[in-house]
Structure formats: structure tokens, C-alpha cells
């Protein structure tokens, strides 16, 4: 299984500022995902990030608010721009691993807990 690390693990930010979250994987992966998990809620997919192409955003999420970089097969960043208190959430990076036999598994990083004041 892939081992995923995220930085920062948590942050408290002021309204109107931006925060960039880093995701590092210990192996090369094609697909990386960014999720948001609000308190007591399940996971909401923000976007899918493939190396060498623009990220694909889900409905309700736009590139200007959540720009994503994917410079190589082991690293990605998500920026939360012009933050408001409604952006307070846990942001999770994940990767998909396709195993021998064609099965799919998805692994998650530890998350970044963001509080916007």
C-alpha cells in the first residue's frame, strides 16, 4: 500500500488568506485525489489530479478557489484561496492503486485540519 504524508497537519488561518497543502507519496502513482471532510460529514471529492494535465474539478469546486498542482508522479499541492470560515474543514489527499488482477484500492493521507477565523 502507498504511504502518504501531508503538510501541514493543521493550521489556523485568517479570512482572506490562502493556504497551500502538500501531499507526498512514497511511490509513483497516476491518480491523486483531493477530498474535503467537514466536521461530522463524509468525504467530498474536490478534484482529481493527474500528472501532466489540468486537474478535473467536481461540481461546486472551481480552479480559482482550489488551484492544484501535480508536478510529478509522487507530489501534489492543493491551495485553498481567499479563505472564509466556511472553508474550515479537513483536507485529505488520496491515491488510487490498481493491483494485479485489476482491483482498485484507494489510500488516504492523514489529512490537514484547517480552521479559518
Amino acid at each position, binding site marked *: *500500500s502507498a504511504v*502518504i504524508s501531508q503538510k501541514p497537519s493543521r493550521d489556523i488561518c485568517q479570512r482572506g488568506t490562502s493556504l497551500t497543502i502538500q501531499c507526498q507519496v512514497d511511490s509513483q502513482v497516476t*491518480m491523486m*485525489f483531493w477530498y474535503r471532510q467537514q466536521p461530522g*460529514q*463524509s*468525504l467530498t*471529492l474536490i478534484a*482529481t489530479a493527474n500528472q501532466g494535465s489540468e486537474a478535473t474539478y467536481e461540481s461546486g469546486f472551481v480552479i480559482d478557489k482550489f488551484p492544484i498542482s501535480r508536478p510529478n508522479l509522487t507530489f501534489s499541492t492543493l491551495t485553498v484561496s481567499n479563505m472564509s470560515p466556511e472553508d474550515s474543514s479537513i483536507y*485529505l489527499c488520496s491515491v*488510487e492503486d*490498481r493491483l494485479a488482477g485489476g*482491483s*482498485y*484500492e*484507494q*489510500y*488516504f*493521507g*492523514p*489529512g490537514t*485540519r484547517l480552521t479559518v477565523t
Partner: protein
Amino acid sequence: QKEVEQDPGPLSVPEGAIVSLNCTYSNSAFQYFMWYRQYSRKGPELLMYTYSSGNKEDGRFTAQVDKSSKYISLFIRDSQPSDSATYLCAMTSYGQNFVFGPGTRLSVLP
């Protein structure tokens, strides 16, 4: 109707109890089914993985998939306080577009 629904709601059981967690879904294209365990302030960790219909057992955990009923279950035998966490079901058809259930928060009381 939501794409994936999960029950029960928050659940408290005594240590040693058998726990049953369930998800129903609407998309018959789903082929791969997963259960994740998420401890407080941690990311989800993959617990069980099943392809198509059938059962899979791993220690105290058993995952069941009934595609004809669009219903999956996770059973935990001899539950322990360390099993206290939120359990999320997830599913996908051919990778991409993983869909997650809302989660069930389980508390196992010593």
C-alpha cells in the same frame, strides 16, 4: 435518493458485542466495495476490500456484498474498545469516482 446510504447512525455497543454496519447503493455499475476505518483526527484507512458479490473474512472482520440487493455489510466480532471509530463504506465501478457513504460512528464501551 442518495447514491450511497449507510446505517445505523451513531452506535454504542458493549465490549465483545457483534457489530453490523450496512450500506445500500443505487448504482448497479459498482463492482468494487471497500470499508474504511477512520479514527478521530486521522485519515481513513482501508480496512476491507471486496470485488463483486460474496464474503471476505479478515480476523474479526467480515465483509459481505449482495449485488442483487445493492447491499453491503461489515461485521465485527468480539468488538474491542480499539474498534471505536467512524466506519465508511466506499464503492467504485472501475476506479475513479469513488463514492463514499456518510459513515457510522461506532463506540465500543469497556
